[in-house]
């Protein structure tokens, strides 16, 4: 901190799409040797601001200054050549290439005029990965890596370029605690080399962990900037949301111990083994574990998306044979998958059609859909979940992350399930939407139903779950009650 001219600065920038402003008045100052948190809810204009800083979009008004000089980047490549690099939420990995080839993509080291010097690339990539402390071999094929490892390669790719400003959009959303910690160390090393870093994340603990200054945006407008040490979590949340939020409570103790869903000796080779658990009426049961701990594979198998090799599944004491999601739905299970864009939603279809897809058979006779009934279901669902969309006829792709997640939940609820299984239900969505989803869980279980929630966010698990199952290497490492659990013990058990 403290240099007079910032590395990169936006002054009163604005940008609209089809007459609808995404950013009205955006300001940000990125200084050398600093990690700057850019905070705001979904739809606050963070992504649009970032896109203007990196040349993906051009501002309609206002100006961008590089070392105090006005600039106008016409393309990402242009910004990149000026030392500004972006790691976006969506991975840009090429799966069939090696790690080293991905790191040097677009700036391959040459041998002769047209050849690629693979040997030198591998050596330099290895040195880079070692310096960052990422345990990845440069000659591995990308397809063999986990999602978290791919994210680390993306980061190495950006860091491998010689740049002064690095913008990271939700870099830890797919990472477990241990991997995130490794990333933080790398980011801090960059800061110490005078790089200016913009860090965008909905994980507030991450921001307090590594950032030293912040900018808050709301409704496309700059709200406040300051030093991280001068703000607390509560005030930051209030700034982001724009209103006071109730302090989140821990859940009330369970009224009954009546099992709704029982799992006995569930196992699948290479993923998870011999899992037994009971999910009670009125319970929110958390599954906490790192990526690759088998937690997602386990819930996918419960729902019939993957086959389990062994084990029994009982709903209300009756044994079930589940050969596919249709059986699970019929048995009263519903599943909100981990990645709403990849496996959750049909992005090319409308909001309404996404909500009604699982329950069409209830809305139709002889295969013909009763339009009135469908309309009623969709209107009720959008009202219940407070889904903000111009109309339920627009494509679901146009909605913000939080609203998309609400559409997924609305779809799950349309079949009136008894058990809702959620894998990372609040990943990448803003604080306000998160709270609405938590409130919905409590309302749902109060009717005698139950929620099984996989999450890698410690706060979320502790604040919402009656009990927490810790997954480690495909096994249940421990079962904890939320009243007694401490954050540190969760992390310890999971890693």
């Amino acid at each position, binding site marked *: 901190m403290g240099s007079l001219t910032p590395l990169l600065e936006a002054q009163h920038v604005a940008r609209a799409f089809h007459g609808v402003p995404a950013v009205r008045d955006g300001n940000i100052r990125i200084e050398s040797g600093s990690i700057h948190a850019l905070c705001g809810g979904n739809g606050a204009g963070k992504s649009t601001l970032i896109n203007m800083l990196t040349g993906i979009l051009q501002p309609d008004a206002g100006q961008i200054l590089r070392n105090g000089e006005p600039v106008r980047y016409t393309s990402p490549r242009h910004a990149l050549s000026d030392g500004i690099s972006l790691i976006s939420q969506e991975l840009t990995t090429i799966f069939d290439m090696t790690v080293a080839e991905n790191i040097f993509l677009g700036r391959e080291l040459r041998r002769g005029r047209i050849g690629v010097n693979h040997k030198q690339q591998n050596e330099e990539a290895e040195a880079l990965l070692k310096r960052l402390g990422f345990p990845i071999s440069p000659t591995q094929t990308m397809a063999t890596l986990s999602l978290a490892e791919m994210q680390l390669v993306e980061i190495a790719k950006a860091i491998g370029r010689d740049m002064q400003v690095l913008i990271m959009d939700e870099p830890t959303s797919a990472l477990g605690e241990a991997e995130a910690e490794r990333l933080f160390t790398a980011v801090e090393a960059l800061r110490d080399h005078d790089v200016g870093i913009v860090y965008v994340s909905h994980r507030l603990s991450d921001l307090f962990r590594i950032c030293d200054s912040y900018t808050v945006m709301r409704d496309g407008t700059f709200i406040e900037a300051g030093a991280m040490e001068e703000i607390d979590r509560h005030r930051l949340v209030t700034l982001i949301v724009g209103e006071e939020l109730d302090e989140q409570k821990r859940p009330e103790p369970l009224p009954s111990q009546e099992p709704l869903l029982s799992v006995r000796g569930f196992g699948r080779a290479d993923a998870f083994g011999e899992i037994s658990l009971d999910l009670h009426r009125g319970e929110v049961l958390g599954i906490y574990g790192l990526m690759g701990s088998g937690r997602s594979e386990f819930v996918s198998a419960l729902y019939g998306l993957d086959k389990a090799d062994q084990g029994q599944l009982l709903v209300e004491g009756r044994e079930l044979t589940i050969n596919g999601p249709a059986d699970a739905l019929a048995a009263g299970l519903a599943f909100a998958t981990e990645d709403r864009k990849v496996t959750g939603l*049909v992005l090319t279809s409308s909001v309404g059609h996404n909500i009604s897809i699982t329950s069409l058979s209830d809305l139709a006779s002889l295969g*013909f859909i009763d339009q009135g009934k469908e309309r009623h279901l969709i209107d009720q669902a959008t009202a219940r979940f407070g889904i903000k969309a111009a109309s339920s006829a627009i494509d679901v792709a146009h909605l913000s992350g939080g609203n998309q997640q609400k559409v997924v939940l609305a779809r799950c609820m349309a079949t009136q399930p008894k058990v809702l299984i959620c894998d990372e239900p609040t990943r990448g969505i803003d604080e306000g939407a998160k709270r609405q989803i938590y409130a919905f869980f409590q309302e749902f279980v109060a009717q005698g139903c139950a929620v099984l929630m996989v999450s890698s966010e410690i706060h979320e698990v502790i604040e919402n779950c009656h009990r927490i199952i810790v997954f480690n290497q495909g096994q249940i490492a421990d079962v904890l009650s939320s009243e007694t659990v401490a954050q540190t013990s969760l992390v310890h058990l999971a890693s």
Partner: protein
Amino acid sequence: MSQAAADTQTKKQILNWINKNGILLALILLFVALSVLNQYFLTATNLTNVARQVSINGILAVGMTFVILTAGIDLSIGSIAAICGAVAASLVVGDTAMSPMVAILAGVGVGATLGLINGGLVGYAFLPPFVVTLGMLSVARGTTLIFTDGMPISRLSDEFKFLGQGDVYGLPIPTLIFMAVVIVSWFALKHTVYGRWVYAVGGNPRSARTSGVPVRGVITSVYVIMGALCGLAGLILTARTTAALPQAGVAYELDAIAAVVIGGTSLAGGVGGIGATVIGVLIIGLINNGLDLMGVSSYYQQIIKGSIIVLAVLLDRSRRSHH
């Protein structure tokens, strides 16, 4: 200032409308242009002729719409239409001719069966549709050549030929069949559970599966529908030409795919519909007819048509990226 803002607002609305209805606009412009350019175009004879001509491609394009909505493709439709036409023709030859109803059932049945083979290999064996239907293109053509011994099957019964040549109240039978196919398909895609499944499977098969949609069954079914419609198209073609030709239907897949794509149905699946395809079919039909009327050689026609297809997709792409 506010006047200027209002003006840009109106301008935007007009541009939006053009964006959304660009293909329909193109069809109307084409129709008007042909009416002005050629005095013979806007006559009952010619328009009836166009309606008859577009029917076969229209029926195939409707089937292709189902396939492409699931992000698939079917290259074998010309060959399947040929074998269906030949099988049907063989039942209505000369003195031993059976009722045309039998021929229709046989033709459509053969088409649906071959479609089932395509669909099963795509849906259950997970082979790429391009490869599966490329194989079927060759297999079905070879089978047609063996079945017909490389010779046309002619001397068809008059009842059967009525299918391709007859009129009801001045409307050609092929056109009536095409219209029926369009209405049923439009309704199926728009208002039935099955239709929703087709869109969901094409838009995101993984999400569709999570939602309890029988993804493999849906994928298989669109090739069966395509096959059955090939049977229908093959019958009409045979009846119109009064003979089953072993080389019938060669390259028909190109016009069918072109009609679907020009209409705006996305090759990536999940977006589009029957209405769009009908517009695409009419555009191709009018281009063919217009070029014929103007005496443009069929060699040039191919070049013009090919360019229009690529141009249509290019325009569509830039239109979508503005969203």
